[in-house]
């Protein structure tokens, strides 16, 4: 309860600071401010993907349905954050590049993440029986884990990018304004805490649902 309050206050407070007080980056002007929302969302999209895949593999090793609950919750939340990152990025692209969608490498990667999540959830939806669903979707998740580096890093790099971080930061160093940097990392922390709170909430709901199912079967 206290945690939940703290997360909300933290995110709201830093969002206000980021929107009102943080300076702009030269080329990006006012669109700088999307970064406090867009990058944390994209980070959670990838974090949830990794979290889900980790638990899928753990399920195959330990056969504890709790790991499957985590994998499923991560996929559901992953879709949410991926859509948030995609929409905010697309709006930004319209402002900066003049069109919503360009098959830029970053757009390609996030698109792959989105279809992976959707394929995974569609697969889950078509399997009957908890153990069977857990096992088969974990197998798919594990094989997708092999494809992810290719989908996210290798294939998109075959095309040229216009995405800002390589342009702002050609040497790959973090040389942001201190105020921007503080707001940005604070939002990153806020989003991560938000994600893990939602994750445990979703897992708890699944557990209650299963207990009710079992009670009905007895």
């Amino acid at each position, binding site marked *: 309860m206290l945690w939940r309050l703290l997360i909300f206050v933290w995110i709201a407070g830093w969002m206000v600071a980021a929107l009102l007080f943080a300076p702009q980056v030269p080329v990006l002007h006012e669109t700088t401010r999307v970064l406090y929302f867009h990058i944390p969302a994209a980070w959670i999209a990838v974090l949830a993907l990794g979290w889900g895949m980790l638990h899928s593999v753990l399920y195959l090793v330990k056969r504890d349905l709790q790991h499957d609950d985590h994998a499923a919750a991560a996929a559901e939340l992953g879709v949410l954050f991926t859509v948030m990152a995609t929409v905010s990025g697309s709006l930004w692209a319209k402002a900066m590049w003049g069109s919503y969608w360009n098959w830029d490498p970053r757009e390609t990667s996030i698109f792959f993440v989105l279809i992976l999540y959707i394929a995974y959830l569609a697969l889950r939806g078509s399997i009957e029986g908890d153990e069977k669903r857990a096992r088969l979707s974990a197998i798919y998740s594990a094989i997708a884990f092999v494809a992810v580096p*290719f989908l996210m890093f290798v294939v998109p790099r075959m095309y040229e990018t216009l995405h800002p971080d390589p342009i702002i930061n050609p040497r790959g160093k973090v040389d942001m304004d201190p105020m921007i940097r503080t707001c940005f990392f604070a939002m990153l922390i806020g989003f991560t805490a938000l994600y893990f709170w939602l994750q445990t909430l979703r897992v708890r709901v699944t557990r209650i649902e299963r207990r009710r199912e079992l009670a009905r079967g007895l």
Partner: protein
Amino acid sequence: MPNAASNSAGAVWSVLRKECRTEWRTRYGLNAALLFAVASLTAVSFAAGRLGNRTDIMAALFWIVLLFATLASMSHAFVREVEARTMLLLRLVATPTEIAVGKLLFNLLFLLVIEAVTVPLFMVLMGAPPVRWGDFLAVLLLGTVSLAASSTLVGAVIAQTRGRGALFAGVSLPLLLPVLAAAVGGTREMWAANSVAPSLRLLGAYAVALLAASLLLYDHLWED
């Protein structure tokens, strides 16, 4: 117990022979797949017309035809077992890995037969310029191995879902996109008289990664 490794090889070989014999007796999967491949090839060729020197588009169309043929036919090997309710028999006589490897080899053969028909037809219908056979076959073979590996694992999973084959294309697609990108790239470079080595490395790495993960995962495919 006799030597386990030679036993496994024997079981894989036996499953592969059984698959080939079933296919030969029924010709149910191969005819349908060939018909589909030729139909999509005709549609592509008819819609695009003679592309002449646009070999970049030709490379893309070529792999799209192969991808479609794969998505349309590759779930068949396992769905057939489930529909005939012979999965139990198979599981009693072989380990999950032996079954899956046998099916993988069959899927590979199946794709090669489809390609043996599709490739010459594509070259003729699209008026493709001469190919560098060594490079082209290397790209084709590595791409085919990845297509077969992905399809075997996903096919085995999909056959156990409520809709059987229905989800196969959608669930396979994310796994096949890297193959598509690298194979199209390689084919394009081949026609542009550039080196295909980068594409071959990518295709090879992906094929090896898929096969290695599959061999670890096959064991978990059937447990109820």
